[in-house]
């Protein structure tokens, strides 16, 4: 009625209607489903009937997106660093300091294409590294695993390989006790919403805040289901140093634990179970191996130290009687263990120094309680809704248009269903993402690969540089998140200024801290300014059936809502323009526009069985009906508990990975849950940090590292931001900045928020919303302090994914960031020797009141 056209889009925080008028986005709202959309499912439990709200429930970071489109941080035209002359002085030492001048697309693509040619001629294959984040604006065509990989393969590049950042401890640890390598070591979730509602009596949230992170990319869909659990009287317990948003909303006993000491707490609970006969003996007997050795460790028969609740008290800060009360309730009640925000995995506790011990213990605890029996499973009602598991639509990890068979899940379905020209990167040289700066500065680095095809793949070390390839002399950076998300990212400053780096290209949407370390900046547009197509929450690949976090499975046409702002272009068009100058444009596009590719994706899926292309575009989305009640998937792991053939729809492990007959037992060598891991015993037998028997090894940056702890007596957690999806919604002059739990505006500057207990604040003379310098040997970051008892004493928590980095010279302290990139302070050490897992989620710091020095700010 007001002259707006209502289009649709999809985001990391859910699908939305986009109201557009005169080439301007007026508003973006959640989608209310209408009567013509498929019916919702119903679950009956304990005499009650539950049906979800007929709306796609979105995250705050989605609700704030319009303001990031119209942001004064948008890059509106190509730019060149003023003192970068591709044919003369390049001045790498000034990266991040000198300013930029506007150039034309013609000039920009000339410089980039010529530099690619020069690199190949002068240095040879491998000298160009491509660096990108773990996430992207939602879509299948414009995704980094799609268009970007296709581009990269066509030019050849040294791969900056990601570590399994979301999974860490599960991949390097838990997997070795039960398999599931294709899920990167986390459990699956089929049928668990229904099982939990029908059977469970208690949910233990352990490092789990689904109201903040809601599993992954699934809006706030799980929230209503957790309210159902409360309605049914299911008890909640929260183990977290912070009374997190989930604990705040639903209540339940809060058990604050010192960061990284969780394994000790878990072990003590298991000790009580043994001592008081509160574990499932039949299950342990029939479905596991190695329990006797584990039991001997728990009881202290191995080392003379019984691992009692009293044993853990000083370490964890949790009183012994609380541990006993929890252990008893857990032993007696049918309990769901919500490990991580997803419930079946993740969790900040898997990303710190003891992360793999923690994840391993989560599996061992469930093994003692009969994992897979009714009401005994992993989860927090976040995953496992009864949706249609046989409807195919690609998830982003299937590689979109990349044609990349090895580094995406393209080979599983996408390639056969949407035949497209294969692409391949002939450069085998790789650099671990966390080690990129060291690789450039020191000229060498090594790491371990993230590869879910087997439990063994991770044991092979690789080296950079690799014989036959050139060391890196050019970085093509896509996005600008490193300072906010990479451990000890202070190293990145030195990297960017290193004289071996002859050229840095940054292709970004917003001019954020890291973009300003580039020589050439190419302005990309947002997903609202180009076409795409996608299934809500469908990542594909390693999170098979991630859509099971939703209440309604929804495939969405992502309209080009407005023209790209300024001279920005879609990434696809930027890649095409560069490749045209290398004679590879047609190979890249196959003659297709992005809209053409969307249609090819549509046709490759099962969606045409439900709706025509025309109707789909007109309505903008389609809801896939849930599975009929009699065809719902059984509860996850029930088949294993009952020693039957696997009966849930996950095509894993790979056929060769079953040690016994395919479909029976687990991927482990014994086919059972192993209290003492065979794959560790075989492949990494003498690693004191990863013993086959999961002994407690205190954190290498915690309360027991006395020398460091004396200097830096506060444990800082850097968890996933509740209000932004990683760096995607933060900064950028977005409306999220006005959320007091995200940033606080003081004297006109928006500071990052650091949470602190009143006891610690008093000890430092700090008041609520004082500016503070958070520091350790790695650097200094200025934040605004939020003082409340929601934080346990001795611990601090802030969000990890800051988009801003605003470095300046403080005459008193040297380089200081006031943007809020706390990852400047986190440890880069791999969490466990012989792995490439990050251990950065907890570090030691000190905090003091801070105010501006009298001098004017000088950019550092």
């Amino acid at each position: 009625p007001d002259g707006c056209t209502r289009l649709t889009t999809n985001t990391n925080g859910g699908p939305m209607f986009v109201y557009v008028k005169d080439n301007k986005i007026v508003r973006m709202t959640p989608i209310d489903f209408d009567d013509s959309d498929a019916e919702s499912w119903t679950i009956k439990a304990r005499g009650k009937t539950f049906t979800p709200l007929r709306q796609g429930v979105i995250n705050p970071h989605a609700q704030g997106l319009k303001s990031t489109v119209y942001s004064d941080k948008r890059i509106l035209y190509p730019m060149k660093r003023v003192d970068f002359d591709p044919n003369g002085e390049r001045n790498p030492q000034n990266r991040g300091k000198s300013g930029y001048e506007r150039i034309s697309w013609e000039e920009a693509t000339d410089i980039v294409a010529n530099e690619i040619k020069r690199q190949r001629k002068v240095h040879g294959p491998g000298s160009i590294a491509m660096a990108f984040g773990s996430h992207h604006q939602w879509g299948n065509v414009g995704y980094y695993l799609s268009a970007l990989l296709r581009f990269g393969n066509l030019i050849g590049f040294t791969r900056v390989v990601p570590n399994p950042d979301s999974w860490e401890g599960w991949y390097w640890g838990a997997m070795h006790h039960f398999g599931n390598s294709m899920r990167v070591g986390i459990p699956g979730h089929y049928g668990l919403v229904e099982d939990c509602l029908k059977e469970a009596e208690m949910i233990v949230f352990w490092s789990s805040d689904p109201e903040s992170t809601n599993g992954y990319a699934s809006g706030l869909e799980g929230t209503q289901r957790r309210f159902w659990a409360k309605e049914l009287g299911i008890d909640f317990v929260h183990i977290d140093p912070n009374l997190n948003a989930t604990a705040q909303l639903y209540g339940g006993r809060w058990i604050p634990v010192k960061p990284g000491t969780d394994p000790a707490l878990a072990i003590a609970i298991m000790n009580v179970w043994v001592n008081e006969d509160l574990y499932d003996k039949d299950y342990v007997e029939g479905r596991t191996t190695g329990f006797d050795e584990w039991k001997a460790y728990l009881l202290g028969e191995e080392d003379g130290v019984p691992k009692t609740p009293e044993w853990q008290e000083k370490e964890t800060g949790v009183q012994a009687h609380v541990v006993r009360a929890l252990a008893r309730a857990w032993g007696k009640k049918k309990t769901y263990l919500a490990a991580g925000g997803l419930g079946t995995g993740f969790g900040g506790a898997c990303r710190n120094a003891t992360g793999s011990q923690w994840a391993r213990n989560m599996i061992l605890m469930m093994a003692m309680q009969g994992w897979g029996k009714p009401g005994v499973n992993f989860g927090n009602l976040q995953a496992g809704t009864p949706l249609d598991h046989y409807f195919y639509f690609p998830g982003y990890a299937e590689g979109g248009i990349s044609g990349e068979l090895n580094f995406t899940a393209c080979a599983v379905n996408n390639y056969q269903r949407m035949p497209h020209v294969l692409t391949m990167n002939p450069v085998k040289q790789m650099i671990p993402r966390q080690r990129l700066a060291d690789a450039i500065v020191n000229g060498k680095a090594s790491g371990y690969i993230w590869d879910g095809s087997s439990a063994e793949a991770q044991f092979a070390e690789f080296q950079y540089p690799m014989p036959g390839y050139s060391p890196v002399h050019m970085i093509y950076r896509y996005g600008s998140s490193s300072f906010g998300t990479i451990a000890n990212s202070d190293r990145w400053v030195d990297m960017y200024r290193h004289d071996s780096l002859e050229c840095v290209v940054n292709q970004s949407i917003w001019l954020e801290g890291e973009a300003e370390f580039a020589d050439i900046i190419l302005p990309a547009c947002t997903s609202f300014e180009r076409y795409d197509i996608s299934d809500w929450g469908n990542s594909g690949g390693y999170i098979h059936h991630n859509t099971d976090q939703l209440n309604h499975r929804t495939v969405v046409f992502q309209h080009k809502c407005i023209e790209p702002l300024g001279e920005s272009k879609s990434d696809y068009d930027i890649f095409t323009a560069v490749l045209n100058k290398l004679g590879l444009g047609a190979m890249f596009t196959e003659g297709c526009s992005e809209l053409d590719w969307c249609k090819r994706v549509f046709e490759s899926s099962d969606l045409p069985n439900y709706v025509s292309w025309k109707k789909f575009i007109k309505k903008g989305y389609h809801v896939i009906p849930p599975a009929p009640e009699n065809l719902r998937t059984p509860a996850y792991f029930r088949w294993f508990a009952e020693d039957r053939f696997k009966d849930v729809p996950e095509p894993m492990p790979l056929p060769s990975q079953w040690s016994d007959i395919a479909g029976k037992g687990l991927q482990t060598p014994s086919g059972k849950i192993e209290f003492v891991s065979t794959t560790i015993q075989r492949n990494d037998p003498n690693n004191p940090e990863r013993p086959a028997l999961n002994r407690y090894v205190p954190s290498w940056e915690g309360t027991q590292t006395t020398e460091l702890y004396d200097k830096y007596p506060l444990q800082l957690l850097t968890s996933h931001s509740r209000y932004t999806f990683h760096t995607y919604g933060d900064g950028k002059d977005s409306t999220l900045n006005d959320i007091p739990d995200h940033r606080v505006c003081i004297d006109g500057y928006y500071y990052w928020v650091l949470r602190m207990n009143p006891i610690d604040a008093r000890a430092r003379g700090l008041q609520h919303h004082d500016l503070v310098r958070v520091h350790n040997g790695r650097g200094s970051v200025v934040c605004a302090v939020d003082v409340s008892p929601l934080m346990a004493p001795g611990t601090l928590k802030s969000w990890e994914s800051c988009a801003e980095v605003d470095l300046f010279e403080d005459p008193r302290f040297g380089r200081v960031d006031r943007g809020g990139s706390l990852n400047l302070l986190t440890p880069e050490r791999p969490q466990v020797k012989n792995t490439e897992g990050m251990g950065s989620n907890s570090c030691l710091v000190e905090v003091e009141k801070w105010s501006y020095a009298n001098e004017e700010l000088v950019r550092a």
Partner: protein
Amino acid sequence: MKKWNLIIDVAKCENCHNCTLATKDEHDGNSFPGYAAEQPRHGADWVKIERKVRGEGTMVEANYQVTMCNHCDDAPCVKAGDGSVKKRDDGIVIIDPDKARGRKDLVDVCPHKAIWWNEELQLPQIWIFDAHLLDQGWKQPRCAQSCPTKAIEAVKILDSEMSALVEKENLRVQNPEFGTKPRVYYKNLHLMDTEFLGGCVLYDNNGTTDCVEDAKVTLLKDGNSIATTATDFFGDFKFDGLAADSGEYTIEVSHPTQGQAAITATFSQSRYINDILLQV
């Protein structure tokens, strides 16, 4: 005549800020002639969330109250507005974006502090209940539509029906003492303006300390029992809804086999008494 009301459940609010962001999304960069001029992107929180943290130790809560213009029936802003602020038939209050220009004085007129001064446009502004959308047939304002828990509910009903609802669901308004007759109602507002007294009951179990489940706990004021409850498996109990600074209370705890205890303490704000040890 059916009129608009808002019902906000404090217990269901999780501080996700979808409501504040949806409101900004609607009004940042958009002006709706006759209803509202553009909202500044930053600083002007037409919809706002207040936090109240209660408790200590391991018994802590954070509760959140969404506040906005109450669309009062007896609104000082309407009276002072000289025609620039109108009360619509459907209950919604609108500050006219043309007529009210320059009226900074109106900001102080609102006792609920719900009027924001737009310096750039020289305009007093409030949350307009998204009247421009309701007039086009929308069923609810943006903040309610985007709310994941439906903690915010907009209802268009007769005033008599609303009164019945207030009675039945124990709804309250913000600062009734101002006498402005707000149309924004709250459920569970005690989570914002009362305190609790909690504790943990323990006993000596042959040399180790353990939690006492199912102990009977009685709260006494001036010798009279005012509430009773029982401990959970962590030995925890909680009495909610107490007034701050309300003086001395006694807690009596007893368990048929594990003993009893009594504690008297002065109460100023929410407390958690961590270590009530029963004696046989």
